[in-house]
């Protein structure tokens, strides 16, 4: 019976060495241990200098995403037993600058996210006295899937376009734009069209589909982007053919 498993971690300690390197750790092979548990064991028992992010340990906070044997995964929802007999190679998420060890810099993504205005832009200002802004179950169903995104960025790591084109807004940001575009309470489509039709927007997607395969929450960013391409193409022609003003309506 195998008692331990080798965890190979890609480390980066900028003040010590300017290039990343791999370090092996031998951790107990506990049944029901997730990859994140193994990393926690390393940090607690073997090497306190190892840096990585996590929070909820239950697949909802989206902070523990890493490359596990080359595939983007939530390490709290990925189990050691899936990789027997090992070793398991853990690297920081692809296509992001690495700050230290397994910790990536998400600033660029945060900027892109803000850019698509992922918030309700109502047609008219509402006050508290107006009461609830109600929706039917069907209206909710139109966008609910896209609300499930936890910003874990696995889709960014899975997408080669993100890696090749740093201006691309990326799967999660466009899916979240669609989450508001399809919300019956929202009237911000026109403002989001400006961003999504622009350079780096939805049409930079070349339909590889890997983002949807990587998504742990089944948001299906591929679908969100392709649906936008259909809507965006309509808007593009409207803006081209209709007189100014009419198209903005």
């Amino acid at each position, binding site marked *: 019976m195998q008692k331990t498993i080798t965890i190979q971690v890609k480390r980066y300690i900028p003040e010590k060495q300017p290039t990343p390197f791999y370090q092996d750790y031998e951790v107990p092979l506990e049944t029901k241990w997730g990859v994140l548990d193994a990393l926690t064991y390393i940090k607690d028992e073997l090497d306190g200098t190892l840096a990585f992010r996590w929070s909820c340990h239950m697949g909802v906070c989206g902070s523990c995403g890493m490359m596990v044997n080359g595939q983007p995964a939530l390490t709290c929802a990925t189990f050691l037993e899936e990789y027997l007999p090992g070793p398991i190679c853990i690297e920081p998420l692809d296509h992001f*600058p690495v700050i230290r060890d397994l910790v990536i810099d998400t600033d660029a993504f945060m900027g892109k996210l803000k850019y698509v205005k992922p918030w309700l832009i109502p047609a008219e200002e509402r006050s508290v006295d107006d009461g609830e802004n109600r929706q039917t179950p069907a209206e909710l169903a139109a966008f609910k899937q896209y609300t499930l995104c936890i910003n874990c960025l696995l889709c960014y790591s899975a997408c080669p376009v993100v890696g090749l084109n740093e201006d691309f807004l990326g799967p999660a940001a466009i899916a979240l734009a669609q989450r508001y575009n399809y919300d019956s309470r929202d009237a911000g489509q026109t403002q989001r069209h400006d961003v999504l039709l622009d350079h780096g927007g939805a049409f930079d997607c*070349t339909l590889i589909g890997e983002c949807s395969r990587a998504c742990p929450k089944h948001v299906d960013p591929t679908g969100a982007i392709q649906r936008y391409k259909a809507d965006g193409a309509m808007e593009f022609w409207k803006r081209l053919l209709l007189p100014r003003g009419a198209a903005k309506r």
Partner: protein
Amino acid sequence: MESQTTYKRFRPAPYTPKMQLSWWWQKPTYFAYIMRELTAVFVAAYAVILLLTLRALSAGEAAWEAWTTTLQSPLSIGFHVVALLFAVYHSITWFMAAPTAIVLNVKGKPVPAKTLILAHVVIWIVCSAAIAGILLTR
């Protein structure tokens, strides 16, 4: 595009890994994607052949005869077989992708992806058979 860089001053330089040129060899899905993109080359080449055929047709009988003999060379037949395979692959991937862009509701219920793919394939086969029928029965 702006981004907040408040902490940058206290951070040592981050390391940004570069994508390898061979990235599309690293996953079967990436490879399948690149093959799908490659189909465009064959479709474009075939379009050029079609244009040359039209030119030969308008240039008189001698030109037409010469052109059709060229088309019957083993090299040309080989190209057509490969181009056909790529075109079929392209069509299949296209139909498989259709449900990602189409959200159809019938009586309040979303139409399943399989049904959408099947509908596309059936229409494709019917159209192809119709065209083949017109061309071959003349």
